[in-house]
């Protein structure tokens, strides 16, 4: 009976399931029914919005990508839907919501046992941990235990990386008492930081420098999703051999996707704020012992405004597009996550002490690997989207993202669980 009702709720799809689940979780954290239900419903509505935008993206871009294959033999038929969609797909997974209390408990246990000093109050980015769970859930045909284990493994790795990078976050970014346990930033840091150290030893490159202000002026357009969407859309229309009318249409549609997607995710975010505040208050009310340098784990968004990070990310936008075309084995058409590159390079820039030339070199390698990993696990990514009841048009139906698909930690976790 219980199993049947759980199955019934899961089958209703995320727009109905999440309002119910978030209402229950909210009430468990001591919110009244009215407030909890309001949050839940807001999240459901966020989902409705995201579904509309993904549909717009996949329908438009899918057709153009297909045309490019026939015209130039450019096999870029996996669409990068971007982290906002990846996060939404994750929350839609049956295992995701339960990962909120689990991740919090794991954090508390690690704090008590002194395995970490990070008090991770950034609930929103628990989605990265939940993403590992959701992927393994698909991989194992719905094994809850292994899925939860995968998420915990991912969380432990991210917290450890956040511990190791905390001194850099405080010295270079000047964020006192803060660490950044954000999944994508940590994963790219894990491979990017050693590459930076290596690059800084190469004679000739070692002393090169670039000025962030000049780069921000020259590449500023890549920092505006609205304009970037328009230009990329029109470019794809041209490559697909469309007529002038259709080139203009796809340009405006893609500007729409880039502009609207964050708006929709913002609605999701608003629904999550009450739960997030409850968890924060709960974690901060606990005393994990004096004489310890605890750091508060925040979203890496607090660091990415740094001039060198912005400059590096802007330069990497055209580089990533170019890589996608020339890199053998890549099938991902970068789009949604071109706006997220600043997160991937935050730790790299920190490790390079703000040297943009070194950061761009390391970033290029990291983005290349990201494209290949995103290609490699696109089938799971797509299957998760289908389970989340997102509309996938026939024929063009493969999606991935640089944030979740091209994430080194997620990829490793998947490879481990593929062996089991």
């Amino acid at each position, binding site marked *: 009976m219980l199993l049947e009702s759980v199955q019934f709720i899961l089958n209703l799809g995320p727009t109905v399931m999440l309002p119910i689940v978030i209402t229950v979780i909210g009430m468990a954290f001591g919110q009244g029914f009215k407030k909890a239900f309001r949050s839940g419903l807001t999240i459901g509505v966020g989902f409705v919005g995201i579904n509309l935008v993904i549909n717009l993206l996949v329908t438009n871009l899918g057709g153009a990508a297909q045309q490019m294959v026939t015209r130039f033999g450019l096999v870029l038929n996996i669409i990068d839907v971007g982290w*906002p969609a990846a996060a939404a797909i994750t929350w839609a997974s049956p295992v995701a919501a339960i990962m909120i209390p689990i991740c919090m408990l794991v954090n508390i246990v690690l704090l008590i046992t002194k395995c970490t000093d990070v008090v991770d*109050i950034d609930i*929103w*980015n628990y989605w990265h941990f939940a993403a590992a769970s959701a992927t393994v859930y698909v991989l194992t045909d719905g094994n809850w235990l292994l899925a939860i284990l995968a998420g915990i493994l991912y969380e432990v790795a991210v917290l450890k990386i956040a511990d190791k990078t905390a001194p850099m976050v405080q010295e270079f*970014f*000047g*964020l006192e*008492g*803060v660490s950044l346990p954000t999944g994508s930033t940590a994963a790219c840091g894990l491979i990017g930081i050693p590459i930076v150290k290596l690059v800084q030893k190469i004679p000739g490159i070692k002393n090169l420098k670039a000025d*962030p*202000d000049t780069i*921000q002026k020259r590449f*500023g357009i890549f*920092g*505006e*999703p609205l304009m970037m969407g328009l230009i990329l859309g029109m470019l794809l229309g041209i490559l697909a051999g469309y007529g002038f009318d259709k080139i203009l249409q796809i340009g405006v549609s893609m500007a729409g996707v880039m502009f609207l997607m*964050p708006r929709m*995710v*913002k609605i999701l*975010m*608003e629904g999550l*704020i009450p739960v*997030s505040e409850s968890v*924060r208050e709960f974690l*901060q009310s606990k005393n994990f012992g004096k004489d310890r340098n605890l750091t*508060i784990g*925040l*979203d*890496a*968004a*607090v*660091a*990415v*405004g*740094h*001039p060198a*990070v*912005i400059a590096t990310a*802007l330069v990497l936008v055209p580089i990533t597009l170019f890589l996608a075309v020339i890199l053998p084995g890549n099938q991902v058409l970068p789009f949604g996550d071109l*706006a*997220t590159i*600043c*997160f991937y390079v935050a730790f790299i820039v920190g490790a390079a002490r703000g040297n943009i030339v070194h950061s761009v070199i390391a970033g290029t390698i990291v983005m290349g690997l990201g494209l290949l990993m995103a290609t490699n696990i696109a089938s799971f990514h797509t299957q998760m989207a289908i389970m989340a009841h997102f509309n996938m048009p026939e024929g063009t139906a493969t999606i991935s993202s640089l944030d979740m698909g091209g994430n080194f930690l997620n990829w490793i976790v998947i490879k481990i669980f593929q062996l089991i």
Partner: protein
Amino acid sequence: MMDRQKIVLVACGTGIATSTVVGQKVETLLAANHVNAKVIQCKITEVGSYEDQADLLVTTTILSRAYKIPVVKAVNYLTNINPGKIDQEILDALK
């Protein structure tokens, strides 16, 4: 007396995550103190497009360059350490 409505930019790295939290706090703060102002939420890289019409920039992230308008750093809203100080800074900046 009709004051011109002031415009407050709330910016973070994504224009989605931390700026939503801070944006809500700023809106509540402005309403509670009867300040006639509107909040625009954006990415730090989009600030340039709004800068000329805005009166104040509230940001959770590091400043990527110098701005023409006053800036209040709001990381404390996220860490919840002494948020009252930021409340005051914002209100003072809009006087």
